[in-house]
């Protein structure tokens, strides 16, 4: 093996830390002082104060036997986030184009793997030092784990972290090298990344929603074989062995029965997995998969006859605006990530009304309706903004030049985009409201009102997200800074518009007129959306 990997590691590290490029040394020194202080003094102090607040000073007794299951859920979460997260990110934008230059210097896939892994280690180390004391704080505090024990615990966590990262990198790279060869594969990769992203969210959601049930499931003996459980059990063992509270023999027996394997076996299993994955990676890379500059496309997709809906649209109107909307629909529908998000939105629209009890205990029908509209507004506007906003607004600056070089082109384009989004969003809203109205036993008037309120919310959200993106167009992918800035701005605008207007209107009218409070936020969203689209399109159309 050549030493290419070390050059790659260095370059990647410089890229990762480029934000501090003039202050790398100073930042490192500060971190070296702050981090141990944080981990050993500050974080445990915060955590113990919070524990006393919640459980009283007897918290050790209250928590003692909850830890084994809790640790397993926590470590599993770390695993899921660190394992699926990078895969999701890597598949979002396949980097083979950037790798082409490395490949032209005869760099092995293995070098790229090892190089990017090593470059990430300081960052993950930092992550562990900052996050672990908070997450593991209750355990450390409750068992009064000695400093030495804490060091051991954080090392185990660091170890779990980097083995998750390593495996993630391996799988991500293998998938990228396989899928990156064709345009179709890249579509699949993007769709897959959206799904993994949602899986992570779902997992976090479940853990937060039903932590006790989740911990109970994690404690069952079938979970003994999950690699993350070995790390978790090892952490609990260390805490027990280095405890400063004097656990009784019977305590130890109960705890031991809750944990899967003994400390040494857990340790060996954990080690074996790590070494095994490294061996696997070094063996399979360049053999089973290799990063290479692939053909532009494997399959050439030929468009066929337009589908029924598009032909119907053409029959309805043959104006040039219709043509723009149809083009926009085709472009949107042919991108796998859009279809995935739309499908996900559809599933949410069906599942949400079945799962959520909107009434929050209220019985007054007007109040129930108000709660329903407000929570639906929030859910639908977020889904609408994520599905139709930001991403792939335009593919490149040249794309914008082409549109700009036509008379009034930007406005036509933006209008067509909004029409396209609404054509897709409104049916989803109908499905959602109809199911919800059935579940909530709304009458006809309230059902129509629900549809109206939800349509206003999603139209407003679509316009807000289009406006924000037009104001600051994003030509890249979900990884880019502009995209993140825009998403943040969109979410803040949505929440401020909905909650702010409900609160403001409530304060003005003394929270009496519930119909006003229910429809007000939708109207406000529409007004904010219209003005943001106007400003955004206006600014996009300005000559440079």
């Amino acid at each position: 093996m050549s030493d290419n990997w070390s050059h790659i590691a260095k370059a990647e590290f410089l890229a990762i830390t480029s934000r501090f490029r003039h202050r790398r040394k100073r930042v490192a020194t500060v971190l070296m002082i702050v981090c141990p202080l944080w981990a050993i003094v500050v974080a445990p102090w915060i955590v113990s104060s919070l524990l006393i607040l919640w459980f009283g000073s007897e918290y050790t007794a209250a928590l003692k036997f909850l830890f084994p299951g809790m640790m397993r859920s926590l470590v599993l979460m770390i695993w899921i986030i660190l394992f699926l997260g990078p895969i999701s990110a890597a598949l979002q934008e396949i980097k083979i184009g950037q790798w082409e230059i490395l490949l032209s210097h005869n760099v092995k896939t293995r070098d790229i793997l090892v190089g990017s892994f090593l470059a990430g280690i300081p960052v993950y180390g930092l992550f562990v030092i900052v996050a672990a004391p908070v997450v593991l704080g209750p355990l450390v505090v409750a068992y009064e784990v000695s400093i030495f024990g804490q060091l051991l615990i954080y090392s185990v966590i660091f170890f779990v972290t980097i083995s998750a990262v390593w495996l993630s990198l391996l799988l991500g790279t293998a998938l990228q090298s396989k899928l990156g060869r064709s345009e179709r594969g890249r579509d699949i990769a993007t769709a897959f990344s959206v799904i993994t992203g949602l899986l992570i969210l779902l997992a976090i959601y479940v853990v937060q929603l039903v932590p006790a049930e989740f911990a109970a499931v994690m404690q069952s003996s079938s979970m003994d074989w999950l690699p993350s459980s070995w790390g978790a059990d090892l952490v609990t063992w260390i805490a027990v062995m280095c405890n400063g509270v004097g656990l009784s023999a019977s305590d130890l027996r109960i705890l031991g029965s809750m944990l899967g394997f003994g400390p040494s076996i857990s340790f060996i299993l954990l080690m074996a997995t790590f070494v095994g994955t490294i061996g696997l990676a070094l063996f399979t890379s360049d053999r089973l998969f290799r990063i290479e500059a692939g053909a532009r496309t494997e399959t050439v997709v030929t468009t066929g006859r337009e589908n029924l809906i598009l032909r119907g649209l053409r029959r309805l109107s043959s104006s040039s605006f219709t043509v723009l909307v149809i083009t926009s629909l085709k472009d949107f529908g042919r991108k796998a990530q859009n279809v995935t998000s739309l499908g996900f939105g559809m599933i949410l629209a069906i599942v949400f009304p079945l799962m959520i009890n909107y009434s929050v205990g209220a019985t007054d029908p007007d109040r129930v309706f108000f709660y329903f509209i407000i929570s639906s507004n929030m859910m639908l506007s977020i889904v609408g903004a994520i599905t139709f906003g930001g991403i792939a607004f335009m593919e490149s600056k040249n794309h914008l030049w082409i549109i700009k070089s036509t008379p009034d082109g930007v406005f036509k384009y933006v209008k067509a985009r909004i029409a396209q989004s609404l054509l897709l969003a409104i049916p989803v809203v109908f499905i959602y409201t109809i199911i919800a109205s059935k579940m909530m036993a709304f009458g006809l008037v309230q059902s129509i009102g629900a549809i109206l309120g939800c349509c206003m919310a999603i139209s407003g959200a679509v316009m807000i997200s289009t406006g924000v993106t037009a104001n600051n167009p994003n030509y890249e992918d979900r990884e880019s800074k502009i995209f993140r800035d825009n998403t943040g701005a969109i979410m803040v605008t949505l929440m401020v518009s909905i909650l702010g207007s409900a609160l403001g209107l409530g304060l003005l009218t003394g929270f009496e007129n519930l119909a006003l409070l229910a429809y007000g936020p939708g109207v406000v969203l529409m007004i904010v959306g219209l003005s943001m689209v106007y400003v955004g399109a206006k600014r996009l159309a300005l000559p440079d």
Partner: protein
Amino acid sequence: MNENGLAIQTETLGKTFGTIHAIRSLTLEVPIGSIFGLLGPNGAGKTTTVRILSGLMKQSSGCARVCGLDIETQRDQVKSITGLLPESPGIYSKLSAVEFLEFIGALNRRNGDSLLRRIDSLLSLLGLEERQNDLLESYSSGMKQKVLVASTLLHEPELVFLDEPTSRLDPSASSLVKDLILVLADETETSFFICTHMTSFAEEVCDVIGIICEGKLMTVGSPEQIIESVDAADLEEAYLRIVGGRVDREQLLAWRA
């Protein structure tokens, strides 16, 4: 419609990006029906000039009229009678060539059967009819360039801006584009404003050439006039003399020392 017979008229046009002077005091007149070539090295300011003239960018100083229309106050009219081929092809990857051209047509307020007929004939002229329903993501950059050339001609503009039209095309495709330009200029009143760094292309196609370097227009004239004015053998030599591109052999290898 245009009283003085000029397709382009600029007066001390200037553009700065911060401290960079992309173009300086550009004064130029291009008569209707002519094929004007703006010749210059990379970074000379050709793209900037085209963007300003086609209404995509604001000049920092000076003024300009395109087909008698002021580029600042009549921007949308300028856009509807001009076509622009941007520097590098960036087009919808998920549309087919036909769908993309329909989109551009619709942005220019054209639609219906006449548009589709025109798309068909342009695509077959450019040799793309067999692939015309394939998604553009599978096109080579030369093929995309051809689609973009078609898109600039779709709405029968009076003036066409082409920014490096042949830099990605193979010899036969670029000679096709050359012929297309010559025929269109001959048969219709269409004027062309072409940026290029290729002297041979400029020599073969353009009736008037302006050489630009570091934002300054160095000279304007027919290829023959320019060659004569610096007493060169051909346009390439004249160009190199004017922009000062000759570097002697020793200097060329100095970096190896």
